[in-house]
């Protein structure tokens, strides 16, 4: 049997001992030793789809940006329109290179004039350096290195969170279960401050909870003591996000891909699509109006043999693309993949083939997500507008 693991100099997560005590198998990821699984990927995947899973995502970078003129400074860096990001709201955004390539994808929340960012673990040090360089001196960039991050995901996540006595820090704010998708705000659990957003990376309803490193074990212990909750490893995190059709930075988009070909145009806010004024704007505005030569699409495969990252996609004898993420879908029971393919072959139902170990596997382009998202969105009133 061939080996699949390697070793490098690694950091320990704040919950390292806690994971090991729960039987986690630890693997290198983003510079940390991280739990890939506890009881098994399939069981953990299923549990998250049916109940609530607790993910330790403390490897990710949590940053705060503040100071006079912070909005203008952020808008120089991100293709975002902060006038439309109210306090208590969070949005997906992109860190772009001058040539329009993606340096990172991130979440940004308005904490009432201070902005809170969550960036990828593998890129956080580069991001911090990049932001320090681009942000003016009167704007403060604070790396919340003493904070852990947990994600509670699944249809029973809200019910589980309600069992803990967590109270809003600000008057007039709802309980955590009263938040809707992409709301974010400060909470108190006894005397423990929490930053809670209703968001995640599984396609399910769920929450991301920022907590001081010193308090994370108490919180993880309390959450995993609830009947709805089990700890879930990185393996299921990857299979869940793949079913949800969500891109993974460094695989599905990189400095060599633009957000438009990656299907991330929604990350470029409306006003910025007209005005530009962010890194890479020239290329991105052009691609928005003219389209791109290739597109990031979902592929469904027959049988059980998976196509994984790097596999080449063919139409007849012509190579038309490359798989960027792929694997077996536990929910659907067959393999799925995401790939960049030539725009001419990107329409849903287009039959294609993927080459895996010298074999051509039949596949077809399908709409994503592969598995329906179940985010907790606001109720709409009769005019169809969100309240």
């Amino acid at each position: 049997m061939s080996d699949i693991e390697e070793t490098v100099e690694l950091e320990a997560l704040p919950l390292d001992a806690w994971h090991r005590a729960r039987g986690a198998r630890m693997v290198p990821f983003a510079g940390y030793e991280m739990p890939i699984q506890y009881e098994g990927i399939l069981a953990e995947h299923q549990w998250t789809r049916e109940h609530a899973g607790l993910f330790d995502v403390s490897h990710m970078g949590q940053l705060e940006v503040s100071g006079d003129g912070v909005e203008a400074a952020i808008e120089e860096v991100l293709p975002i329109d902060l006038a439309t990001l109210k306090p208590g709201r969070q949005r997906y955004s992109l860190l772009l290179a001058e040539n329009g390539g993606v340096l990172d994808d991130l979440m940004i929340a308005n904490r009432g004039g201070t902005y809170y960012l969550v960036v990828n673990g593998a890129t956080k040090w580069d991001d911090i350096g990049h932001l320090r360089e681009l942000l003016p001196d009167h704007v403060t960039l604070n790396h919340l290195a003493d904070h852990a991050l947990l994600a509670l995901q699944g249809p029973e996540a809200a019910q589980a969170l309600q069992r803990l006595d967590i109270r809003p820090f600000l008057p007039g704010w709802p309980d955590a279960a009263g938040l809707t998708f992409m709301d974010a705000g400060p909470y108190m659990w006894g005397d423990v401050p929490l930053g809670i957003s209703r968001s995640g990376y599984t396609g399910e309803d769920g929450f991301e909870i920022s907590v001081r490193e010193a308090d994370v074990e108490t919180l993880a212990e309390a959450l995993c003591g609830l009947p709805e909750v089990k700890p879930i490893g990185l393996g299921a995190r990857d299979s869940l996000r793949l079913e949800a059709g969500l891109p993974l930075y460094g695989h599905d988009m990189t400095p060599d891909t633009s957000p438009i070909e990656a299907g991330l145009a929604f990350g470029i806010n409306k006003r910025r699509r007209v005005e530009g004024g962010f890194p890479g704007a020239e290329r991105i505005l052009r691609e928005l109006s003219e389209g791109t030569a290739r597109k990031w699409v979902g592929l469904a495969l027959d049988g059980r043999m998976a196509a994984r990252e790097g596999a080449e996609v063919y139409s007849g004898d012509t190579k038309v693309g490359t798989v960027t993420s792929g694997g077996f879908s536990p929910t659907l029971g067959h393999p799925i993949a995401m790939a960049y393919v030539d725009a001419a072959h990107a329409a849903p139902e287009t039959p294609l083939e993927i080459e895996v170990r010298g074999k051509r596997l039949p596949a077809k382009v399908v709409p994503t997500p592969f598995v329906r998202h179940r985010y907790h969105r606001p109720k709409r009133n009769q005019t169809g507008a969100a309240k």
Partner: protein
Amino acid sequence: MTRYFTEDHEWIEVDGTSATVGITDYAQSQLGDIVFVETPDAGAALTKGGDAAVVESVKAASDVYSPVSGTVTEGNAQLEEDPALVNTAPEGEGWFFKLTIADPGELDGLMDEAKYKEFVDGL
């Protein structure tokens, strides 16, 4: 019937010149949930240490090597329907393929069960 083990975590059970090959319990525990197995077809010629089969978990695909050279007589058809057999019965019902051994001398140097256990404990 004698069972031998390789450092790549395959087992081979030998009966004269016929043998059955699979992966060890340690190997399946390292791989995690197995979702697909590709076994060789009857008649395929295998070489010692060469690719013989593929086993895929949710996360990754791994090659399974043949412990000895020989000709495949049968792949385990059950694994197509139920790849999880490799997790539940790796050293029994979850076997990968049977073969006719070309050179029994190639078995020299493989480990017996006690030696393999020692080898795994040292990993």
